[in-house]
């Protein structure tokens, strides 16, 4: 079986600043991969390149054997690439249920239905309620995004991504800004995601992140500098150098 993600010699620069430098990365199906690195290491840029929001200067990106290097961003969602954002990117004026329903329309042909009213008992809304139930927010389904707490919005982010049944899920700091209790909730949500979804996560909370990932990749100035299992990476001199400066 082909790899869930195979990146070869990827490059991206903004003007003279190289944010991704000759980066190659392979993630196996079902894997839980953690990407760490200091601020400005190019982690989010890498996600933007995989999801297609940024075009790469050179190199290739393949997801489950399909070359997506040149695919426009919206088509990548149809191949099974789904992502969340470090800065919450939801539809604040809409209800939670509508947010999730909209996410499901994204990969469905039904988004082109122009003369039929989207009823509240539509299968897509009922499925949205199920998904909100999974993230523990069914009781808030009819509230607006702007009316719920930041921690709850983080959970909606995950519900949106999961509603598309992704084969490759990119989580960009899903725990950012959460309290300890909320972190535990989100951590449990992520661990409950079935293995049919391959997960790549950027996270700074090492306690949660290290318990989640099997393999860790360390990025520094857009290059992959260390990769391996938890103990290997944590004890590697390069990791210590990057994070501690000695």
């Amino acid at each position: 079986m082909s790899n869930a993600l195979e990146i070869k010699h990827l490059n991206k620069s903004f003007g003279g600043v190289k944010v991704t430098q000759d980066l190659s990365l392979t993630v196996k199906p079902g894997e839980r991969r953690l990407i760490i690195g200091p601020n400005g290491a190019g982690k989010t840029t890498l996600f933007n390149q995989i999801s297609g929001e940024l075009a790469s200067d050179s190199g290739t990106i393949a997801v489950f054997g399909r070359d997506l290097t040149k695919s426009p961003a919206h088509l990548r969602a149809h191949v099974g690439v789904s992502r969340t954002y470090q800065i919450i990117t939801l539809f604040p004026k809409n209800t939670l249920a509508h947010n999730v329903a909209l996410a499901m329309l994204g990969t469905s042909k039904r988004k082109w239905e122009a003369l039929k009213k989207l009823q509240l008992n539509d299968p897509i809304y009922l499925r949205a309620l199920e998904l909100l139930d999974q993230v523990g927010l069914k009781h808030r389904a009819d509230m607006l995004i702007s009316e719920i707490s930041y921690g709850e919005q983080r959970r909606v982010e995950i519900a949106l991504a999961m509603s598309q049944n992704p084969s490759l899920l990119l989580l960009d700091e899903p725990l950012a800004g959460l309290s300890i209790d909320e972190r535990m909730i989100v951590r449990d949500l992520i661990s409950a995601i079935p293995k049919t979804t391959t997960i790549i996560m950027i996270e700074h909370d090492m306690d949660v992140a290290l318990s989640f990932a099997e393999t860790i990749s360390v990025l520094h100035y857009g290059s992959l500098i260390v990769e391996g299992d938890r103990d290997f990476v944590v004890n590697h001199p390069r990791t210590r150098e990057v994070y501690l400066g000695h």
Partner: protein
Amino acid sequence: MKKLAGFLTIIFLISIPFYSGEYYINLASQMLIAAIFASSLNLLVGYGGLTSLGHAVYLGLSAYITAWLITKIGLSHGATAAIALTATTVMGMLFGWIALRATGLGFLMLTLALSQIFWGLAYRWVGMTNGDNGISGITRPMPFDINLDQSNYFYWFVLIIFLTCMLLITRLVHSPFGASICGTRDQAKRMTALGFNVWLIRWITFVLASFFGAVAGLLYVYFHKYIHPTVMSITSSAEALLCVIAGGAGTLTGPIIGAFLVMILKNYVSGYVERWNMLLGAVFVFIVLFMPSGITPWVADKISRLRNTTK
């Protein structure tokens, strides 16, 4: 409650010619035509989040094509209407393709520039358009041998088309595609990541807006039986935008109320106040200051507050 209000409004609209004079029936017809036009622009501005300052070009183009085909070629009304609507929509496809290279201010400037081209053409291409003299001598259609030259029959004819357009627009806005349009307005980046082709959705919205604009143009030229280049001027486009913003962009009833208000000021009040444009400006400033999101959202907000306090 909402359905009852809608039903009563429709009954009221149908009944107008039974107790109103010719002047008021004609004013009502003009109000409905302006409402169709404002609602078509609202698809783009209110739901798509794309502010256009060149929407009058679709009204004007459809009106000019109709006028030209009827007076110079002598084509039948049915064929003329079909050609005018199709040609204008095709023009909308082309203009949308050009204007949607940008969003925001760039989009606004492109729509303005494109409409100015046709405004200039209408003035200068005298052989086709009679230039500043305009085209007169346009007749109204005679569907089922009903004489639309009578103001009451013409009003009902406009009303039927108005209600059909509003039904279609309402359905569209509440449909999954309508939800997609609003999504591209609110969070384009996320929509792309979710698998929506944002550009295509915007383009289709643009084309739909130009089609409904063309419908308004058809009725406009039937009503006036005359067409002049000023219908395509920036003032006409700005007036429609004003209807949308004053009434409430992104609401179904807002542009209708906005259009009614502007038409009343323009036709009725101008009989008493010479500088009615100044009055229109003052009303607009008042609305923007005291109801920044428009009349409809302001009223809706007051009603919901009233309900909450009586509970």
